[in-house]
């Protein structure tokens, strides 16, 4: 968890650390959009549950480690106020082969979206509103179970 932005390349280099048995890194970056459910978004504020959020992310990462042969995982999630086009979340997974890397990154994002305690509040011309959880995120989770 951090308020600062992140550099994807630097995070990848840190994850690899010259480990020559890594053949594949899958990455996901989530970004603030300026339009959500029909309204213009001027800023987004991310709230989290200090303590529990970190534990959830560690738990999600260890579930991914148990399911796929991974050589490393990075999860960075920003909190606080963010503007459209800013980076919100970074997930990196490293493996010998690409399918393990891709699948574990999707798994982590699906779990993070529906299990990690983060809440988004958007400022729109109609006033501020909390982003509602999406049914589709629950559906996405179901396929891993």
């Amino acid at each position, binding site marked *: 968890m951090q308020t600062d932005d992140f550099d994807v390349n630097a995070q990848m280099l840190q994850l690899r650390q010259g480990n020559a048995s890594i053949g594949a890194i899958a990455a996901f970056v989530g970004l603030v959009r300026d339009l959500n459910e029909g309204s213009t978004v001027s800023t987004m504020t991310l709230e989290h549950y200090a303590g529990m959020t970190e534990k959830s992310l560690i738990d999600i990462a260890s579930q991914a480690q148990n399911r796929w042969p991974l050589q490393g995982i990075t999860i960075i999630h920003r909190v606080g106020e963010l503007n459209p086009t800013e980076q919100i979340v970074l997930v990196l997974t490293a493996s010998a082969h690409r399918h393990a890397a891709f699948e574990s990154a999707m798994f982590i994002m699906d779990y993070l979206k529906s299990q990690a*305690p983060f809440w988004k509040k958007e400022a729109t011309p109609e006033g501020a509103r909390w982003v509602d959880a*999406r049914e589709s995120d629950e559906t996405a989770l179901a396929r891993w179970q």
Partner: protein
Amino acid sequence: MVRILYFASLRENLGLADESINEPVTTVAELLDLLAQRGQLWDEQLRQNTRLQIAVNQTMTKREAAITTGDEIAFFPPVTGG
């Protein structure tokens, strides 16, 4: 004594981020009954809220969960990170 945390829209609607209560409660459901006695707002936002998410000591759980003195109970809406 248990510590209670409220997040996101619940925190805003109840006007409270956290509190500690001394009344003896043995399950989350009992705690919700107790809080609902504060009035309609509390009843609607918590006890009657079918989408209410509950964590005891930072682990997601259900209304049936047992609680004991010293526990940290958190109430929040469905999460929307990522």
